[in-house]
């Protein structure tokens, strides 16, 4: 895969230039007093000048001015010295994420927000909204021009819509100036393609990733390993029950479990089908693996591939999987999807990684978080066999990102806050929180014991393995309408109102219509740029 480097986008190597270069580039060299006289030096590890203090392991999250967080703090201090820093920044974010920023991960530890306030004195006003509604609030703010927030957060997929509406600031200049460590080869995202995927839109830096919603497969190892289950599977399928590698195997396992009771109530094999919006990524995952190495949702000219033979075949498989899903699956959000695994109702699910954080393990009072505690495990994404290779594919879907509001009078300070929050040390500290929707995705996150205790050691290799094999969902202007159109048609097929072929034909028509209307706004260019962010990794079968 060749990745063409956009003119405004620095490479990972450039992102990693040392502090001296960054200081020179940002003109902060004259601010030596800030760098050399840290306020809480006595509590910091040698060489560190900022970050959390006062709890065991705090040094793992500390930084100095040569590090991404340190550069952000120094940047703020420079703005303050020049009288250009605000006293307060306002951020709109899903209410389920607020505690992750504002509360310490345990008593006695430092909350990320406290560290920020201590080091900059800038207050952060956090305004919460339900996770499903947060982008509606973003668009309300953009269209009314009220400029109520300096920073928006919302689904990564909506970046295109926000950029098209003129609501987000292109942060390429700030990225160049302050050099965040998002692409650090040791601590950040593992490939340049992933940096592009999460932090750029149309080759410019608009979103700042605060989440890693790469759908990851979880299964009930405790059920899989039961001798009765193994025997029954062997008898019925003629092979040992093992975690699936392909969609065919997923379907076989789903079919096997449906209607059976292995001592925990009736099971349903497929945990992936859900209501509109929440069930869509499963279809995309399946679709992405229909061809080798990828089945792109659009061809090179930006023409949708939905009603191609492979697209229709995928829709037929998707519809067939309803027969193995829980009865109310088409009304499930991710929460009910998680509950179906926690209640031992489904053996497999591809979902957000917080399923393990909230459902596997023990509460403070020593009681299990769910019936699935101790029974869960994770496995690699599934794909299809092409000769001696498998193209395992997952998808990036939702994934909370931050954007700087184009109405914000404090764009630079807002960016610096986001850089500080999303840099690998602070972000890892945030991942240590047992609450919240922000999920890990940086390499540093998966090496941190506190993160492993939340997201479980069994997922610490699976998640990055999944991330590397994930493709992007739609994220260009008109994405919401396109996802909605496909979703609606798929649901029509799932409820028997249309055949898979009719549904795909209709979805294709709607997508073409949307593309026609958005053509003048650069949708084709965005589609082509998105193709560059698709992984081409394949594994031996």
């Amino acid at each position, binding site marked *: 895969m060749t990745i063409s480097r956009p003119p405004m986008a620095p490479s990972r190597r450039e992102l990693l230039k040392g502090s001296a270069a960054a200081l020179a580039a940002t003109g902060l060299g004259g601010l030596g007093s800030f760098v050399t006289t840290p306020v809480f030096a006595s509590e910091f590890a040698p060489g560190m000048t900022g970050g959390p203090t006062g709890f065991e392991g705090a040094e793992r999250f500390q930084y100095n001015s040569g590090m991404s967080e340190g550069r952000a703090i120094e940047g703020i201090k420079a703005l303050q010295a020049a009288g250009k820093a605000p006293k307060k920044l306002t951020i709109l974010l899903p209410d389920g994420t607020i505690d992750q920023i504002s509360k310490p991960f345990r008593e006695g530890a430092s909350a990320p927000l406290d560290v920020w306030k201590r080091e900059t004195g800038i207050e952060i006003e956090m305004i919460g909204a339900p996770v499903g509604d947060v982008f509606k609030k973003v*668009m309300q703010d953009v269209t009314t021009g009220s400029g109520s927030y300096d920073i928006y957060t919302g689904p990564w997929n909506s970046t295109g819509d926000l950029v098209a*509406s003129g609501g987000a600031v292109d942060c390429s200049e700030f990225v160049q100036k302050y050099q965040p460590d998002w692409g650090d080869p040791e601590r950040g995202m593992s490939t340049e393609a992933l940096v592009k995927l999460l932090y750029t839109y149309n080759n410019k830096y608009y979103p700042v990733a605060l989440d890693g919603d790469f759908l990851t497969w979880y299964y009930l190892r405790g059920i899989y390993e039961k001798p009765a289950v193994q025997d029954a599977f062997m008898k019925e399928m003629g092979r040992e029950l093992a975690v699936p590698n392909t969609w065919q195997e997923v379907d076989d396992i789903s079919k096997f479990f449906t209607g059976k009771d292995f001592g925990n109530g009736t099971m349903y094999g497929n945990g992936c089908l859900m209501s509109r919006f929440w069930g869509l990524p499963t279809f995309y995952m399946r679709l992405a693996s229909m061809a080798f190495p990828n089945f792109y949702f659009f061809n090179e000219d930006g023409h949708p591939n939905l009603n191609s033979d492979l697209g229709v075949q995928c829709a037929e498989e998707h519809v067939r999987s309803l027969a193995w899903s829980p*009865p*109310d699956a088409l009304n499930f959000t991710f929460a009910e999807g998680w509950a179906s695994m926690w209640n031992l109702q489904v053996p497999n699910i591809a979902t957000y990684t917080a399923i393990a954080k909230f459902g596997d393990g023990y509460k403070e009072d020593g009681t299990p978080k769910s019936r699935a505690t101790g029974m869960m495990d994770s496995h690699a994404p599934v794909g299809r066999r092409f000769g001696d290779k498998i193209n395992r594919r997952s998808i990036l879907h939702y994934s909370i990102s931050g954007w700087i509001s184009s109405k914000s009078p404090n764009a630079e300070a807002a960016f610096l806050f986001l850089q500080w929050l999303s840099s690998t040390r602070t972000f890892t500290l945030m991942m240590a929180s047992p609450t919240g929707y922000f999920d890990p995705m940086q390499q540093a996150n998966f090496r941190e014991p506190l993160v492993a205790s939340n997201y479980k050691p069994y997922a610490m290799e699976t998640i990055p393995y999944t991330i590397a094999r994930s493709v992007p969902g739609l994220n260009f202007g008109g994405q*919401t*309408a396109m996802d909605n159109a496909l979703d609606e048609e798929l*649901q029509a097929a*799932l409820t028997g*109102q249309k055949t898979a072929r009719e549904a795909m034909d209709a979805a294709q028509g709607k997508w073409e219509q949307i593309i026609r209307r958005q053509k003048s*706004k650069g949708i084709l260019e965005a589609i082509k740029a998105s193709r560059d962010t698709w992984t081409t990794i394949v594994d031996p079968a």
Partner: protein
Amino acid sequence: MTDVTANIVSAAPAGSTTRRGYWSGVARDGRKLGLWFVAPTLVLLLFIVIFPMGMQLYLSATWWTPLDGTPWYLAFESFNGGENYLRLVTDPGLWSALWRTVLIMAVAVPVQFMLGLGLAFLFIDQFPGRKIFYSILLTPMMIVPAVVGMMFYLLFQGTGPINNTFGLPASFSWLADVNRAMISVIIADVWQWTPLMFLILLAGMLGVPQDQLLAARLLGGSNWQNFRKIILPRMKPVIAIALVLRSVECFKIFDLIYIMTKGGPGVQTETISLYLYKQTFADLDWSYVAAIGLTILLVLSLAAARGLAYNAKKRA
């Protein structure tokens, strides 16, 4: 009145003869005075009714969406004549949503009416515990619709209380089933709004003169005859109000369905309100939504005008 206005006129600053002349004219002319009194309200109305409608009309003639990145007043750059109006005529999504809305209205409102009427009839007479039952009966309509939606969402789960009570298997899905989802929504709406119907109808029934009912009873009229010949004719205006109120509210149904099914499965419970919400916030197709909104307003206004004319003609 004349004295007071005369005093006001005489208190006007000297030298403003023309103005004083005008105002004394206004003070003497009841029509002009009235106009001045309502002028502030008219200006307010202009701002809160005429301007938004004008803005809608303007947007509906363009392709403008927030994704354009231009302010709404520059929408003329994507002027499309009346294409949004042509589109709505041929939009199957809109028509099917409209059909489902009418279906809910056509089923839920008559059921609420019949139940409300029956309950009201039971509550005409005094009986022990009447006040308590009355309070209990009215409770559902005082609950926030979103809460009712959540209640019924939980009740109708495959493993929920309804299936458990009736011994139905967990696979008997209510909200994810194409047909039963609509029934579930209607049941929830009937549960919540029958009390309102009951309340209005009971008020109407209590307004029927007791002497007439008593006389009818003395003359040997049965309960049914009394109801049909005396109560029902006297309640006609109240019934009309109750039906219109509930029909209008039912047409706007949103919260309940949004919580229970989000319009699903597929679009099986998507009403016109949910469709508009989806077009507005999911598809961000604001110019089209403006066209739909104006068309609905126009159609409903025409229907209302026709209804009023019909009533007036009948009375005459």
